[in-house]
């Protein structure tokens, strides 16, 4: 199966998205919500491309992360029309989160120095890419989701204030591309989503490791005993060394 991208004929596998095909060929398409480890989301729309089934057909604008490759499809990734759409999206994003460096850089690349819209009253760095929500779902906690619409859209806890499902793994904050989610570790305490967690100390060295809730969560989800997840990697390595020596009788 072949697709024609910017005049180049490229091989594509069935079921593969247009974004996958172009990335493999080294053609750059900007993305914000795309994450290789998570299901495609199609939220940021920056990866839009023009597709045309044949010369007689009109070109459609589709998000390349969700659109599957089809034999003979003609794709333009950087036409004037696409450029204009991306510039508008970045103009809007700049109104939403003027402090996000990632947005500032991309906007500049697309010729948007400052937003032509009204800046959000309470600007933050969140670009609503949903990586955190999907990461949380992948972990199996499902503690956060999108809430509200338009300029009021945000990532929030259930009813905006119920952190009961959060296990304090930190995946949302660490995978956020703009650093919009606040997580503070001070000693054994972790604060995130307005909740305080205790990071269990390594039984050997006392170094804080995962939160108590996350260890319980991992044990429940993997079917492995809780002790599997106790202790820090450094001490476990030392123990492994001792066990190896015992095995070879030294």
């Amino acid at each position: 199966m072949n697709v024609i991208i910017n005049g180049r004929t490229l091989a594509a596998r069935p079921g593969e998205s247009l974004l996958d095909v172009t990335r493999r060929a080294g053609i750059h398409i900007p993305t914000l919500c795309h994450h290789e480890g998570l299901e495609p989301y199609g939220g940021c729309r920056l990866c839009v491309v023009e597709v045309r089934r044949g010369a007689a057909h009109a070109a459609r604008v589709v998000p390349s992360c969700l659109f599957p490759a089809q034999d003979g499809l003609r794709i333009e990734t950087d036409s004037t029309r696409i450029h204009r759409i991306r510039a508008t999206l970045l103009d809007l994003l700049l109104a939403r989160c003027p402090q996000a460096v990632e947005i500032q850089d991309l906007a500049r690349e697309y010729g948007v120095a400052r937003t032509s819209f009204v800046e959000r009253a309470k600007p933050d760095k969140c670009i609503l890419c949903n990586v955190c929500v999907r990461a949380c779902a992948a972990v199996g906690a499902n503690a956060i989701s999108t809430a509200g619409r338009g300029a009021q859209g945000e990532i929030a806890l259930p009813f905006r204030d119920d952190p009961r499902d959060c296990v304090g793994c930190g995946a949302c904050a660490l995978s956020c591309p703009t650093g919009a989610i606040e997580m503070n570790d001070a000693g054994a305490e972790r604060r995130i989503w307005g909740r305080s967690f205790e990071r269990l100390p390594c039984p050997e060295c006392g170094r804080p490791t995962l939160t108590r809730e996350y260890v319980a969560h991992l044990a429940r989800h993997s079917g492995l005993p809780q002790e599997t997840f106790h202790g820090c990697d450094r001490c476990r390595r030392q123990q492994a060394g001792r066990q190896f020596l015992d095995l070879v009788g030294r």
Partner: protein
Amino acid sequence: MSKRLLVTPARCIGCRTCEIACAFSHPAGGGPGQTRIRAFAVRPPERGVPVVCLQCDAAACVRVCPTQALQRDDRTGAVLHTEERCILCQACVAACPWGNIGYDDGRQVVYKCDLCGGDPQCARYCPSRALEHAE
């Protein structure tokens, strides 16, 4: 069968050349990166034991990873970690019974042995053949 990284603790002299070879083979931020192998002086103190990923057949890290960021490379036999697929939940770090996956707090990355793409540098530089890459 493909080659494997063989560890013979009895031959380890605790020089930790493997750690240096590893750190320099995995550069990060313009300098040597985190070493994936450790040569501990356990007992007696002047001798060491190399501890490195065993590339387990039924690996706990692969089992707990929610995003398939850890996958076996059939060519080298290594369990590879793909940063782009990782959501940094660190379940693998907690699940490895041997402590052979680490999390770098400063750079916010998970790291593990990748067998250097099929030519492990720790084995290449080990002066006492405690580490060998052989059939």
